[in-house]
């Protein structure tokens, strides 16, 4: 039988152990709530998606599900149009990313070169505006502006040029989608690049100017290398975002004509909500997730992280 003093000592020792445990792993305890949140909002849906891709039909009773192995994956890649939609998606991502990066950088450089503070402010607001348009609104506006009968763009082309305006959405659907996305998201690249340009020390630019370097050399050898982390982060974020594009393209073309603009996201939507094939939709989503993670990692490994995180 323990005496009160012994009990007190034991309690004190127990509390001390707990305190040590708390102190020794303090950073981990602090991160734990966030880890829990991330697991619940990121990993659980991913795992559930994987589960859906392997069962016949969704059911609340997990144990009653009929597992069908890779059947949905086979369907996705044979008659589910998965390969085609991957090709379309990569085409859109690469083209739009290139256009948006180049245009965004050019606009940022031009605005950075403006002397008047008031004009700078005006241009900044002007160039950022397209990004504020919601995807559904953009698609609706796009459909109206490109309409061959009542659209302003075909009207301007027909009136001011010797060429007949094409039927954008049916004759040039992929190009139209890329250009509309470019119009919508170049402002994002502009903002980031403009911030990057503003962070380049004047002394470096001045030194290169004193050394007699022409403008293009100053950009190629001084400014752009200094901005590398900014360029890298902006491009990576935009690339991942482009892989998720859905609203604008669905509103504009519904993935057509035929499947000419059927991005993976649209294919997943159609499999799920039109074909009522949740298993096939989940299978494409799983492959797509792995694909995007792989691409992002390849880009990170190729370009490198120097100066980005450290």
């Amino acid at each position: 039988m323990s005496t009160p003093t012994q009990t007190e000592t034991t309690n004190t020792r127990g509390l001390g152990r707990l305190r040590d445990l708390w102190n020794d792993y303090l950073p981990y305890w602090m991160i734990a709530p966030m880890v829990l949140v991330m697991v619940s909002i990121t990993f659980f849906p991913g795992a559930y998606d994987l589960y859906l891709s392997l069962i016949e039909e969704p059911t609340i009773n997990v144990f009653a599900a009929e597992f069908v192995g890779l059947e949905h994956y086979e369907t996705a890649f044979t008659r589910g149009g998965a390969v085609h939609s991957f090709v379309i998606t990569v085409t859109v991502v690469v083209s739009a990313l290139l256009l948006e990066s180049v245009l965004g950088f050019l606009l940022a450089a031009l605005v950075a070169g403006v002397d008047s503070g008031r004009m700078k402010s005006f241009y900044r607001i002007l160039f950022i505006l397209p990004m504020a348009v919601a995807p559904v609104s953009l698609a609706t506006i796009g459909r109206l502006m490109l309409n061959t009968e009542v659209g302003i763009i075909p009207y301007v082309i027909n009136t001011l040029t010797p060429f007949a305006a094409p039927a954008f959405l049916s004759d040039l659907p992929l190009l139209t989608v890329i250009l509309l996305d470019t119009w919508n998201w170049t402002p994002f690249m502009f903002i980031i690049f403009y911030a990057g340009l503003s962070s380049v020390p004047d002394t470096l630019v001045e030194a290169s100017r004193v050394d007699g370097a022409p403008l293009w050399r100053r950009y190629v050898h001084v400014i752009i290398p200094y901005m590398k982390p900014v360029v890298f982060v902006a491009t990576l974020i935009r690339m991942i975002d482009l892989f998720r594009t859905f609203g604008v393209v669905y509103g504009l073309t519904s993935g057509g004509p035929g499947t000419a603009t059927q991005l993976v996201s649209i294919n997943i939507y159609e499999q799920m909500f039109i074909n009522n094939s949740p298993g096939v939709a989940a299978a494409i989503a799983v492959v797509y997730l792995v694909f995007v993670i792989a691409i992002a990692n390849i880009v990170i490994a190729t370009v490198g992280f120097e100066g980005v995180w450290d």
Partner: protein
Amino acid sequence: MTSGQNRRQFLKTAGATSVGILGSLAGCTRGGGGGAEGTSTSSGSSGSGGSGGGSSSSSGGGSSSDDLAIPLSEYDSADIDWQQFEGDQINIGAVQHPWVSAIKPAIPVFEELTGIDVQWNILPENQFRTKRQTDASTGAGQFDVFFMDQVVNQFREEGWLQPLDTYFNDESLYDESFYKPNDLFESSRWQAHGGGYSDNWTGLPITVEVQTQFYRQDLYDKHELEVAETWEQHRQNAKVIHEEESDIVGTAGRGQKGYGMNIYILNTLLRQKGTQLWTEFPNDSGLDTEGVIEAAEYYTSLLQDYGPDGASTQTWSDVQAAMAEGQTGHIVADANMFWGGLTDDESSVADTVQIAKVPKPEGGELNPNAFNWQISTSTNAENSEQGFLFMLWATSPPTDLWINTESSGVFSVRQSTWENDDYISKVGEDYAQVSLESLKASAPDPFDRKYPQWGQRYSEELQRAIAGQKPAEKAMKDAAKAAEDIYS
């Protein structure tokens, strides 16, 4: 006031506010009013005499019998025990649809007649489809009654839909002499029986639309054209307008893919050639037969030659807008319900637009497409019997007549309503006559259980043909292969 009272008051207020917000987010409404305001797409009057007061009471706004939109005596002749479920409640899952707006003012009638409280769950179409599928497939059974469309046979074959025949055989729930099932259009009854894939009632039809053609009388007078009865005449009329008018195309039609889009039109054209889809189900889709290919070639070349540029991307709303804005001489074949939008105050052709039956091929039969919405109940619903009473009441002759003559409906599934003088005077003689004749000759699409899948592929191929990406014949052969692969 004590702090305890303050806290209680605060909690009560917060609780009530939360429930209100959650209710709004879920789109839940109850009784005879509210809910659909601001989301309704209905046009016309919103009912004369309905209480529709947005009340949350079970009697629909506390209406007395005298205030009811339809006198309860209209239901006296029914040998049905209306009050057997008094005090119960039913949940209805619905899309934002003119039928909902049209029937809502009459809901207090049902609540008074049966003592059953009606709870609405109204959602935009895409959200509703997702919620309906989740509700049915997981066995949640939240909806006692819900809207049903092209996926009827998928739901039926999965065992999610409850056949209504048991209720039809229950003498306390059904009285044939009151309900008059043969007054429903044959195509509506057929659709409610799974579009030919079931001998059982899968639900009761609530609305029907049928394809008609629309044309500009002013242009017809100007160019001395006759209303087309055949495809060739229509093509010729479209050609004249297309070539003679500088800013007006000859014709417009749905080109966009999707099973409510381009194939909704083409299916009419191919049926008029004597062709049927799935003559040998599920081995032969019939999509590569001569009749389908000819129909596809006609429709494709019509839109390419005399339609707007980019016709392949035209949705039904683009087509309607083109006509209402005076941009086209015709709509070749589309929902008769466009009539309202083409003749209202906002239409620039309101004074000159005319309606006629869909043209048919030389020697072919008039057989336009008809699309029905129906309401069904699921096998997991807790109050299916109460739901059946609601379906029966909502589609019964007195209610149907009221919806379409006194409220905003123009989509009756009952022949007697189309022949009613009040209804004819409300919608106009032309609309009533053309629609009625077309409805009598109509047939809906046979929505088999995988229609959404193969319909999508079929519509993609047709869109490719309209866009000029491949010949119509090749497109239909590819569509046939895709459709048959899905069943292989």
